[in-house]
């Protein structure tokens, strides 16, 4: 929000200049006027407008694809919205989210805390790196969904297994990003810390972690996105509960609008959640981004 007053302060000055000049030189008047964005142009190029237009285009394309239809199992946008509304109205979607969110949130919190801790430790200490990096590099490359039967075999079909699936999906990218972030702290910054007599723990807390935080947070966002996939995957592959249950059940009775409504709701929730992490990062750790964009 802070950005707008700033921009407004700068722009009118430039426009005033343009207006003055156009009054002085009639031959160049047209060119200068063209360059001055009017209220309409500003409205149409505003980030919020553009995002709404982009979303609207997507919905229209969806509607069109549904009416063609590209597949009998592909509902139109309006049908899906109606189904979504019905699920919201009778509260079934909320009940489903309450179930799905349990393994998801537990798994994400555990992955975030443990993942950042392990990644930062690996970045700070080479022994920790040698010990842990093979595990997570393999984990990131392997198709982890294939491990789900093994997990069920070991931990049953309850909350534990589902939480584990979320962790397995979310952790590797969080760990590896945190590790890379810490490793790539600019050497001159840590040297600056040492030369101004910061003890090791201050170099870590005041220089290395703040310097690493953008990449750590990028890892957290990616990890959360994977965690969401993990939660739904667990509900589809282990036992149908929560949102996964709506998806499975509506597909089995060919209620495709409800199925797509459930998928859409989880996507929207995921996007909002990840956006919230980004906002939290800027508010907590990047004062310079708040000061000026």
């Amino acid at each position: 929000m802070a950005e707008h007053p700033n921009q407004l302060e700068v722009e009118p000055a430039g426009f005033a200049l343009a207006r003055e000049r156009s009054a002085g030189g009639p031959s160049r008047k047209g060119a200068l006027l063209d360059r001055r964005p009017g209220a309409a142009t500003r409205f149409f190029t505003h980030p919020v407008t553009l995002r709404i237009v982009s979303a609207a285009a997507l919905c229209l394309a969806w509607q069109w694809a549904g009416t063609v239809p590209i597949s009998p199992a592909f509902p139109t946008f309006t049908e899906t919205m109606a189904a979504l509304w019905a699920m919201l109205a009778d509260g079934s979607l909320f009940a489903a989210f309450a179930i799905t969110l349990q393994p998801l949130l537990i798994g994400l919190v555990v992955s975030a805390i443990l993942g950042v801790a392990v990644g930062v430790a690996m970045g700070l200490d080479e022994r920790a790196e040698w010990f842990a990096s093979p595990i997570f590099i393999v984990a990131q490359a392997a198709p982890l969904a294939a491990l789900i039967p093994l997990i069920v075999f070991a931990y049953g079909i309850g909350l534990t297994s589902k939480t584990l699936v979320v962790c397995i999906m979310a952790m590797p990218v969080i760990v590896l990003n945190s590790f890379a972030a810490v490793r790539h702290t600019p050497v001159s910054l840590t040297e600056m810390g040492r030369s101004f007599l910061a003890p090791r723990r201050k170099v870590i807390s005041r220089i290395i972690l703040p310097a690493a935080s953008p990449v750590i947070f990028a890892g957290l966002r990616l990890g959360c996105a994977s965690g969401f996939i993990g939660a739904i995957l667990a509900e589809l592959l282990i036992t149908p509960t929560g949102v996964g249950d709506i998806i499975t059940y509506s597909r089995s009775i060919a209620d495709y609008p409800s199925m797509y409504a459930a998928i859409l709701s989880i996507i929207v929730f995921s996007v909002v959640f990840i956006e919230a992490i980004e906002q939290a990062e800027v508010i907590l750790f990047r004062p310079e981004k708040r000061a000026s964009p």
Partner: protein
Amino acid sequence: MNAPIALTAARPVTDSVVEVRNLDKIYAGTVQALKDITVDFPRGQLTSLLGPSGCGKTTLLKIIAGLLPASAGEVRVNGKVVSGPGPERAFVFQDFALMPWASVIKNVTFGLEMRGMAKAEREEIARRSIARVGLAGFENRYPHELSGGMRQRVGLARALCVDADVVMMDEPFSAVDEQNRRKFQEELLTLVAQEKKTFIFVTHSIEEAVYVSDRIVLLSPRPGRIAEIIEPDINRDGDTEAIRRHPVYLDTVDAIWYSLKTYLD
């Protein structure tokens, strides 16, 4: 110990804050960056390290700062052997080394904060130091809002406010344009005259070295050795502009150029 010390029997009145003795630096077991460096840095003067790129100026400066270990030999500061960074030395980094997430004042107070000074006191000192380098009013800006030259001044303010005996600067003016560079050089002269500090200044500009230095240590390229030590006899009390027309200034620039030319092929 050896010749250079014995020869300083007729030592000038100034004492040496920093003494470097028989210093060697070998990187990664193979690259010999410095070889048998023995040199003194007199108190209250500005000494430049001058030499072609890659001759080990930054390496020598970082060893004196205690940021790099020497492979052999020792550095003494105020008579004590250096084993790491210390409160009597402050560093101005070539690439500024400012924390992008911290405002100017937070960057400048960093050193004082690490020394355990209370917030009100350190901000008071930092404000004075910021004003000193001509950045008053920019206390709450962030580094990315400043020009290269302004960032360099923040680094300088940070080094000045910890009140160290020795201020080390690694090519502090390399990121600014020629006009600003000249302006900063003049300001540096004023600073040296006013502060009772010892400055060690790295540069690869001959003109800059002769303009600002009381003493110039000329290094030869790899392995870095001391080629020559020059003390240009220029009176800097009067007009700072006049220095660039001073015959000694012009002669010294020429002499150094002829010395360095022999390394070019």
